[in-house]
């Protein structure tokens, strides 16, 4: 049995390696595309220079407060801020050359100051945004809120505009007849305290002392920490993309395995193979073994390049990683046999198989992580083997988890292998003559 088995496997490997298109599709394409996606999605350690959000600011106020807000926004590293006018700003957002336009209306500074102590007559900031960039709009809104709060409060407690607003507010409270006497007294005391604070701050500033107040600031600081395999190990965006592209192109190779059987049938080779005194199990088994070997070879080469060129490390369990590779390779082999069993002509089968594969790859999270899917779809993907393959590769590479984290993916992939294999064997048309 060994001589025919070795001959069949060696023949498959030789045919694969002699097919330049197959080699390019299996080795070069996943590396190239994974490198591109990895770069886009954060690169090595998130060092990739990300593009800044284009923001136009229309300052119709030109007050100290509005100018300070402009300056504060312009200093933010995430934003690319430029001054503009209302109509050009709207047109730029409409065309997509700017993501967000912020319109600070006339008298914004004074109105915002007054509204700082009262709830009525709040000024309105118009935020024009490109609806295809809603995430960026949210981010700009957050930065703008922080900036406005800081600048306006600083002016209220420190600046000349603030002093004028406090005096004006004290005068209005004194004249007001609608307030209860106790409330009027409390507000009066509060504003008088602010006025005294301002006077002391100005005096301190004149004598060279600073820091009495810079206005209201966010009452916390954020310490960012990417949680990866270990302390000191940075996230490598290439790890996920190399896993994803390996999964995709190995499944394409699996399709070629199935199509290869159909072509052999069409070309009469299948007759010659079946005329030999070898069992059906040996014929299909050899095909599965050679497909799994090619799949393993692709995985090892692609992840080898990822390690050498892009610094993708197996931060988790190496046996776990190899286990996921073997299980995925077996699943691919069974998938290829299923294609051969269900396909009729090579031409018709290729198109349908590629479509199914792309769906599997997409649902598996090979292109974009599965967590962005709706919850129901995430539940569905638990039944998609590629999702387990991706989870397994992520767990063993950048997440740095132990072997126990690979057991689930390995079991799911072997389960899929059994299902695909059983279907393929039961549906294989042994007597079809092409």
């Amino acid at each position, binding site marked *: 049995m060994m001589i025919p088995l070795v001959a069949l496997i060696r023949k498959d490997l030789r045919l694969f390696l002699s097919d330049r298109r197959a080699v390019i599709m299996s080795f070069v394409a996943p590396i190239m595309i994974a490198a591109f996606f990895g770069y886009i999605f954060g690169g090595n350690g998130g060092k990739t220079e990300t593009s800044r959000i284009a923001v136009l600011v229309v300052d119709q106020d030109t007050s100290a407060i509005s100018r300070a807000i402009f300056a504060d926004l312009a200093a933010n590293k995430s934003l690319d801020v430029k001054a503009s006018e209302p109509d050009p700003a709207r047109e730029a957002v409409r065309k997509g050359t700017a993501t967000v336009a912020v319109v600070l209306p006339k008298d914004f500074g004074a109105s915002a100051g007054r509204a700082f102590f009262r709830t009525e007559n709040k000024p309105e900031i118009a935020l024009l945004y490109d609806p295809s960039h809603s995430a960026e709009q949210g981010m700009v809104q957050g930065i703008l809120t922080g900036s406005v709060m800081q600048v306006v409060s600083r002016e209220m407690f420190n600046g000349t505009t603030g002093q004028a607003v406090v005096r004006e507010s004290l005068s209005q409270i004194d004249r007001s007849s609608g307030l209860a006497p106790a409330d009027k007294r409390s507000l009066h005391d509060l504003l008088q305290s602010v006025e005294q604070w301002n006077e002391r701050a100005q005096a301190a500033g004149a004598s060279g002392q600073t820091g009495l107040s810079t206005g209201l600031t966010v009452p916390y600081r954020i310490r960012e920490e990417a949680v990866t395999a270990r302390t000191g190990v940075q996230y490598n965006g290439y790890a996920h993309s190399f896993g994803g592209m390996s999964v995709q192109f190995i499944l394409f190779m699996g399709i070629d395995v199935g199509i290869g059987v159909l072509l052999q049938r069409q*070309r009469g080779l299948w007759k010659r193979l079946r005329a030999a005194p070898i069992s059906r199990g040996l014929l299909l088994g050899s095909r599965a073994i050679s497909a799994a070997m090619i799949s393993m070879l692709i995985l090892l080469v692609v992840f080898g390049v990822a390690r050498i060129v892009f610094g993708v490390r197996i931060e988790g369990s190496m046996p776990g990683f190899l286990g996921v590779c073997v299980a995925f390779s077996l699943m691919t082999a069974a998938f290829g046999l299923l294609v051969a069993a269900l396909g009729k002509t090579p031409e018709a089968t290729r198109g349908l198989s590629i479509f199914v594969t792309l769906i599997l790859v997409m649902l598996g999270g090979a292109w974009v992580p599965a967590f962005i899917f709706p919850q129901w779809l995430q539940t569905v993907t638990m039944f998609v083997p590629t999702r387990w393959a991706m989870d397994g590769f992520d767990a063993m590479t950048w997440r740095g988890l132990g072997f126990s984290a690979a057991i689930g993916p390995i079991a799911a992939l072997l389960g899929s292998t059994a299902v695909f294999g059983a279907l393929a064997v039961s549906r294989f048309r042994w007597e079809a003559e092409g």
Partner: protein
Amino acid sequence: MLEVKDLRKSYGSTVAVDGVTFRIAKGETVGLLGPNGAGKTTTVSMIAGLLRPDSGEVLIEGRPLGGDSDPIKRRIGLVPQDIALFDELPARDNLEFFGALYRLDGAQLKRVTSEALDLVGLADKAREKVRNFSGGMKRRLNLAAALLHDPDILLLDEPTVGVDPQSRNAIFDNLETLKKRGKTLLYTTHYMEEAERLCDRLVVIDHGKVIADDTLHGLYRLLPVTNILSIELETANGGLRLEDVRAVSGVRSAEVAEGVLRVGVHDLSTGAPGILQWLADTGHLYTHVASERPDLETVFLNLTGRSLRDS
């Protein structure tokens, strides 16, 4: 050597093979003759173990053909109708691969591969990829691939389809060599001239049934006319009456066109002297006489009422 007993195979409501029975003795070459769709390839596929018959059996030296991995399959070599080779591999690698399927390896595999390449005249092309071969060369290599394990029985399913006359002759030379070596050949074709040249016996099949099984001469004997005499008359007609010709003893048919009288006789040894003597006696002089035999096309037409090639 090979016995086919009452083979039947249907696909749905279509009966492809309907009770085919024949035997082939050791060293005999038998032609399986019939039009396209007659059931020849299905019969060969069942003999080779590619298809499981609905009923009936195939016996190799009295032993029924078993499952896929039955060692008795080593006694059979199949030359499929398609060129069943890997275009991407060199000729030698193709043969070594097919030889390995029959558990040949090492020096033995190299030796039989070289011998097969020598036999089909492709030894100098051993290292060349099959994709660069002409159609005729591929056909010869297709034959070689069935010989590596030295089978006793060769099943040849239309092995000369689409080849030029030179390559066809080369393949015929190869087959005649194999015949001399005592191989048993079952040759499937719908080319009359191939069957006539190569086969000792012919099994004619139509609509999945055997309609004749005999030697070439035996099949000819089924015809009312076994020879046709073409007699060029000295004068174009000379008052010859065809009814008189047909009345001559031994004559089965007669027609005349453009000064040539064509007379059909069942037995040349008695029919020919009789008609020639009658012409001399009645003053119808002739300048040239030739004899021609009807071909298998005529045999098939006589058996089925249909032309073999147009079926």
